[in-house]
């Protein structure tokens, strides 16, 4: 039984660090702020969550120590990471950072017009 749990802990750790690595890779490789934000706000969230979960399981199963702060940390990251991604991309757009040149559509450009029409 403990071997199975150890395997699960190891699995979560490896997946978490792999996802964090992919995030870093995506940050270097992707072309503009917005696509980089995709990588940063998704993979980093799940990566850190997996690592925290593995830490929690390790201390619970091996040491018998139930650390509720790790659970709270997982929840906080889960709630705040998408908001951070949203705010960064919104701030970037509003300060005029251009989209990648291969972008096909930009409806946000029509936002001002839409609001002038409806307000």
């Amino acid at each position, binding site marked *: 039984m403990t071997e199975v749990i150890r395997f699960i802990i190891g699995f979560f750790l490896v997946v978490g660090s792999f996802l964090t690595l992919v995030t870093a*890779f995506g940050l270097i490789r992707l072309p503009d702020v917005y696509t980089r934000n*995709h990588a940063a706000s998704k993979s980093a969230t799940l990566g850190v969550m997996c690592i925290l979960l593995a830490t929690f399981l390790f201390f619970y199963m091996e040491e018998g120590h139930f650390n509720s702060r790790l659970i709270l940390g997982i929840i906080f990251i889960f709630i705040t990471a998408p908001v951070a991604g*949203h705010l960064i*991309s*919104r701030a970037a757009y509003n300060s005029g950072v251009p*989209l990648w040149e291969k*972008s*096909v559509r930009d409806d*946000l450009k029509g936002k001002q017009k839409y*609001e002038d029409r409806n307000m």
Partner: protein
Amino acid sequence: MAFQILLNFFLAFVWMFLSVSFTSQSFFIGFLLGLLVIFAFRRFFNSRFYLLRVAAVISLLFLFLKELIMANISVLKTVLKPKLDFQPGIFALPTELKTDWEITLLANLITLTPGTLVMDVSYDKKILYVHAIDMPDVDEAINEIKDSFEKAIMEVSR
């Protein structure tokens, strides 16, 4: 909903006082009995029986986790593909949700969905501006997913 939960706690306390045993066990028994009472009298409340809503919240949570995992797989595919041949873009998504917290929840869900990121919300709260990492194949499929998300959120708030 909050009123029904409060009433359930109140009934549990009444049960503890009736049976003169102040343990967590008798509280639990009282809570279950109170649940039965509230279920029996459900037609006198304005909102639905609250366990249904609790179930909707739990299913929304699982939807969240599932989407997070799917999103990560799609990011993996995008980042590790040898050629950068996706076409990003921003599209407008009309939403029917009214209150602020519903829209926040929808925006968070969309951000954790494969290939989409919420950029802005219009001032009249009717349109979400979403950045998609690959426009051609995402556009239709995404709208379907949005329908399921909006339904799941409405299931909670209705």
